[in-house]
């Protein structure tokens, strides 16, 4: 049996989060491409992979000074490397998140909620999507809501990630009203929204970065 240790949601965590995003999104590249092929233009997996690879290249220049700095680095890089709808939306999300993180050296539960809320609000401000429009907002909105309860940062992240996963799954029956999938009208129903799914991966990556699995041997 193994155990887990939870690390503080500090600058090092933020860097690990971004690297974990890059790892997961590279892994899920084809899956996200296929989701986007079904109701969009088949580039979402490539866009996210390209963006986060660039983030990692930036991180390799040295560790971030703060959570806010890491998030801002992600924001600027995604903005200039992703393009498409996802670039400005995730770019704005990380930028607003960075501002919300402020000069905190680590995030507790309420801080996690504040950061995620800022991110979601940024996406809504840019993209004007409402819940139910079958966009990434449908993953962010339940995530923000779920993050409100826990006092502990990691628990807030865990709740957010699970809610985002459920939210992403719940986009399946919806008819898209924003983004490229909206052109399909009723034919968009029956498919997951790629941006909602990538959001769920990004939030799950935040949890993974916070939690190290320790094998039974290690804790013996």
């Amino acid at each position, binding site marked *: 049996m193994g155990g887990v240790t939870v690390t503080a949601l500090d600058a090092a965590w933020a860097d690990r989060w971004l690297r974990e995003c890059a790892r997961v999104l590279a892994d899920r590249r084809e899956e996200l*491409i296929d989701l986007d092929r079904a109701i969009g*233009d*088949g580039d979402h997996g490539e866009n996210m992979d390209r963006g986060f690879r660039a983030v990692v290249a930036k991180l390799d220049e040295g560790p971030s000074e703060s959570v806010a700095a890491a998030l801002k680095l992600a924001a600027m890089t995604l903005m200039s490397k*992703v393009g*498409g709808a996802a670039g*400005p939306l995730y770019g704005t999300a990380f930028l607003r998140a960075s501002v919300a993180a402020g000069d905190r050296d680590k995030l507790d539960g309420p801080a996690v909620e504040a950061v995620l809320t800022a991110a979601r609000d940024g996406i809504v401000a840019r993209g004007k999507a409402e819940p139910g429009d079958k966009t990434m907002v449908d993953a962010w909105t339940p995530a923000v809501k779920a993050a409100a309860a826990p006092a502990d940062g990691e628990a807030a992240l865990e709740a957010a990630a699970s809610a985002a996963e459920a939210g992403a799954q719940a986009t399946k029956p919806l008819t898209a009203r924003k983004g490229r999938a909206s*052109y399909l009208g009723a034919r968009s129903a029956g498919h997951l929204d790629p941006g909602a799914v990538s959001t769920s991966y990004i939030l799950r990556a935040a949890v993974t970065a916070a939690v190290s699995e320790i094998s039974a041997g290690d804790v013996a």
Partner: protein
Amino acid sequence: MKKLINDPRAVVDESLEGFGLAHADLVEVHWDPVYVTRRGGAVQGKVGLVSGGGSGHEPLHAGYVGQGMLDAAVPGAVFTSPTPDQILPATQAADGGLGVVHIVKNYTGDVLNFETAAELCASEGVDVRTVLVNDDVAVEDSLYTAGRRGVAGTVLVEKIAGAAAERGESLDAVEAVAKRVVANVRSMGLALAPCTVPHAGKPSFELADGEIEIGIGIHGEPGRQRVGLEPADVLAERLLTPVMEDLGFEAGEEVLLMVNGMGGTPLSELYIVYRRAAQLLSDRGVSVERSLVGNYTTSLEMQGCSVTVLRLDDELTSLWDAPVKTPALRWGV
């Protein structure tokens, strides 16, 4: 996937490099970030014209950089809008002191990236106006969508606004004429076969033998409707009718008729579609004064076409006829 490429990730850069070499007399390709300008840069005392969008629609947009059309073009990854850090320097390079018009196809990604870029430009002191092109009538219900897409009509906006800028019109006037083209141009397309995005490696959608997609966009998106293959005359009517209805044409009006290939369709087939579309227009008493037939706004190697109609008036016609000297559109000079 069978393509004349090297690394799928290098497609846009290598293609632009070839483009720059082949047309070094007309254009200059800039790297890091990537954008294309007219050879010689901004024309002082002329309104600048910049467009851009995902790659894969060649010759749109870089093929339309040159005298009488665009001052700069900003290519994104395949089917992915470019980013603000590309659009900013392209806009600065296009500014001849009178400001710049951004011609943007109405897609969420393009709109958001050009929006951010316009803010950056403003903060750098460039007066930017944005004209959204949304000619695709296949997207019917714009209340419940991201709004109509910009497709092949974009070429007409770029040509006509380019001519207005070239003859020395003000920023307001160039913006106004571009918007007038947008208000009077409509398109609709279909696909016989999908395209394959290099980095995806798989066709953008599946079509059975004998099936076609009506109302496709230019990004390999599936269309609104899947129907059985029909004769070209029937298909031409399927495309033209909604275009005509949306524009509300009346007998006696004059139009430009464009039949645009999606990249993998022979010119001979485009002329067969043109033939029927022209007949239908003339049956309604609409007079086709100008035409354009060919691969002007493509979707990689997609097989299919779109039909575009632009309502003309004397000014638009004379701006259309004005000299243009770009890699992909050239006359009068």
